């Protein structure tokens, strides 16, 4: 590969002598490779592990989604599942056997066909590694129950009915066993190799992979599924730049060094949205923010204290901290999840009611301190902590705001005795499956970070278990409605908000399509192109 040339401000100006010549705002701010363009995206999160069965977070998924394909794909808002490597599928009456029929023309980047064996291998690999995506299917799908019926048919025989099976299919990427097998070391299913290499069939292939700073991908010209734009418009490639500082990312898009950025502080977004040459994308997200309360220990074990806190909390501050780019939750479920109902009487700030609840508790006059823990390094939860501190002053409750590294927080929260009084928790649903959200309030959630409330309620447990195997959508939704109401009643957490997902792109970027089921900053690069001379 030759190195590509640059058609704009020129890194050469970077030579100190010519430094003064570098100017922003040129019409040709994108990278070029011959007649085609390279799309440059900047975010703050590195991609340490590319293996699609081992890790996922927004930046990792963005690259995985580009270099790999799955049987199906999430697109659009509201989200839909569309066929991808599988052209169609069917299931039996109780939704415990799922059969997928593959397209005939899909090829891996090295030319091997994407066949049923590759699909079987990939699912088996994911389950046996027992990392990353494994939790989605592991309790219903033993690895030996995956069968490659013929070259284009795969059958999954589950141990229980699983109406949500399909919702996970877009998240299981297919790797090429013929490329992985030669790189297996010590029975690791090629994990070490796939950490920095790819063996996929996706629209892009890896060109340069520097996990902490830059990931450069080339578009596959003859991608098996074709491209949505016409051929002259197709990108030559895409680059993910890891730029940790929001201020630096903003400077870069203003200078035209990058075409699109994410993880933008609310105030920056306000500032940039009106600038010439910038196009904002501002969409309602699916990531729930809640402050869980330890229901087994300390003052928050008392439901009246929990209710008092929930009614004293300043919900408007949540929205203000995001400059209005957030929606308050009207249920424990985010509203894009099937089965969501707005629960009546979900707490809003009402100091009188808060005082009434507190009066019924063991601490009628407050006078205690609670610990509020958030993940070290995150700004919004810190500010929300300050809002909490302010909100609870009228109740004479003190708040100790503590930042801890994720592993420490999880280690503490795993046990009811050591779990903090309050923890700020973001949960991003990875699929459109309500079971995942409902399970947050099941006793099983103990040990998960969202289970730091340690709620134990036989009624909820029973409903969750029934709903996950209920094939009839009507009955299932009724169960989920019950669960939502019951959870609000028990108040194991302060139900917070759904923050908007936001990007800023240069106005020549085309094809960006929002889909709430992607992770926070993730962008599907497949339909993106650059419209400028």
């Amino acid at each position: 590969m030759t190195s590509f040339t640059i058609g704009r401000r020129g890194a050469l100006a970077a030579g100190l002598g010519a430094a003064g010549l570098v100017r922003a705002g040129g019409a040709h701010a994108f990278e070029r490779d011959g007649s085609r363009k390279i799309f440059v995206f900047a975010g703050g999160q590195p991609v340490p592990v590319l293996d699609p069965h081992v890790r996922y977070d927004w930046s990792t998924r963005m690259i995985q989604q580009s270099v790999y394909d799955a049987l199906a794909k999430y697109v659009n808002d509201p989200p839909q599942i569309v066929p991808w490597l599988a052209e169609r599928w069917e299931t039996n009456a109780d939704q415990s056997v799922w059969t997928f029929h593959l397209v005939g023309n899909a090829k891996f980047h090295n030319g091997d066909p994407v066949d049923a064996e590759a699909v079987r291998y990939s699912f088996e690999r994911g389950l046996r590694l027992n990392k990353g995506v494994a939790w989605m299917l592991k309790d219903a799908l033993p690895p030996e129950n995956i069968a490659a019926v013929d070259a284009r048919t795969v059958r999954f025989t589950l141990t229980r009915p699983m109406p949500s099976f399909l919702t996970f299919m877009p998240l299981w990427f297919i790797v090429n066993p013929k490329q992985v097998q030669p790189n297996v070391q010590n029975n690791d299913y090629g994990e070490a190799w796939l950490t920095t290499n790819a063996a996929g069939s996706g629209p892009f292939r890896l060109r340069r992979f520097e996990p902490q700073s830059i990931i450069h991908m080339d578009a596959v010209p003859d991608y098996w599924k074709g491209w949505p734009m016409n051929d002259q418009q197709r990108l030559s490639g895409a680059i993910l730049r890891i730029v940790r500082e929001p201020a630096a990312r903003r400077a870069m898009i203003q200078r035209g060094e990058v075409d699109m950025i994410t993880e933008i502080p609310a105030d920056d977004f306000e500032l940039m949205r009106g600038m010439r040459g910038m196009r904002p994308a501002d969409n309602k997200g699916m990531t729930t923010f809640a402050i869980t309360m330890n229901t087994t220990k300390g003052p928050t074990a008392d439901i009246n204290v929990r209710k008092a806190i929930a009614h004293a909390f300043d919900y408007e501050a949540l929205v203000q901290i995001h400059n209005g780019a957030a929606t308050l939750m009207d249920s424990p479920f985010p509203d894009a999840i099937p089965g969501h109902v707005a629960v009546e009487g979900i707490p809003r700030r009402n100091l009188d009611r808060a005082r009434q609840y507190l009066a019924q508790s063991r601490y009628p006059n407050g006078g205690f301190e609670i610990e509020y823990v958030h993940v070290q390094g995150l700004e919004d939860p810190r500010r929300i902590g300050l809002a909490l501190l302010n909100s609870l002053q009228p109740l004479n409750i003190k708040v100790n705001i503590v930042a801890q590294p994720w592993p420490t927080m999880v280690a503490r929260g795993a046990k009811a005795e050591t779990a903090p009084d309050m923890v700020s928790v973001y949960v991003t649903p990875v699929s459109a499956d309500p079971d995942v959200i409902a399970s947050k309030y099941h006793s099983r959630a103990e040990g998960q970070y969202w289970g730091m409330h340690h709620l134990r309620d036989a009624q909820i447990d029973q409903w969750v278990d029934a709903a996950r195997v209920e094939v009839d959508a009507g009955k299932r939704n009724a169960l989920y409605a019950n669960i939502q109401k019951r959870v609000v009643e028990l108040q194991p957490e302060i139900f917070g908000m759904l923050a908007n997902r936001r990007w800023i792109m240069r106005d020549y970027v085309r094809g960006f399509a929002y889909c709430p089921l992607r992770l926070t900053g993730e962008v599907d690069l497949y339909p993106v192109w650059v419209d400028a001379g």
Partner: protein
Amino acid sequence: MSLALQRPGFAARHAATLRQLRFYAWSFGRSPSSMLGLAIVLLFLALAAFGPWIVPYPGDGSGAMNLSNRLKAPSAAHWFGTDEMGNDLFSRVVLATRTSLWVGLTIVGVATLIGVPLGIAAGYFGGWVRMVIMRVTDIFLSVPGLVLALAIVAALGPGILNGVIALSLVWWPGYVRLVEAKALALRSEPFVEAARAVGAGHGRILALHILPNCTSPIIVKASMDMGLAILSAASLGFVGLGAKPPAPEWGAMISVARTYMPNWWWYAVFPGFAIYLTVLGFNLFGDGLRDILDPRSSRG
């Protein structure tokens, strides 16, 4: 009754000491940079002492919130502007002097309390005592304090107290080195030999002869270290391992403020300038002290 002998006045009894002090003051006053240092240090101490009574919005140091007033530019009402929670930055910057003073004093104090006795012991006793103490000291000296402190605070969790513990743990070795060399030299001085010859115990010799003769370099180092300790604590704050909110602390303020640069420049500029001034003040002051107390070592 015999006439009560007129006791000599204070001035007369301490004439020599006073003369010495006057000389110190005179030579200190002759250096404009030392005086500038002194002025800054005094201002800093005054702000730390009286801060809560002179700032316009004392509540802003303990987590008041005024979201409608956020990120306002400097004005008559808010000299340094306001931060992202709508707090008055002038109040927070001033209130943070107390945190910084406490941090500096504790770190330097703990470091002296650990380092000086160890250094004296090592220098005075020599032999294996010195061997063990100095090797352990060297290990700590071999890692830049900030890296080790970073690890300690990351493990303990952020917070000023943890930062102070971490920095104190990495700060003492410098004092061991300093005092050890001095004590080693003093050990064979005639007056120490003489004291030993008349049968003075180790404790007495250490307290009366060795320690007093080490004080000048200790004072000089301590005053220089005040600034550096404040700077180090601010550095921890900057990487996100500083004071717990809502406590005001300069490093933590800059850490938050950097995302607001350059459009809301005042947020980062004023706390940073406060750090700079404070550290500068203590350094100039320490420099001046060194010139008069310990003139031979005024290099490097």
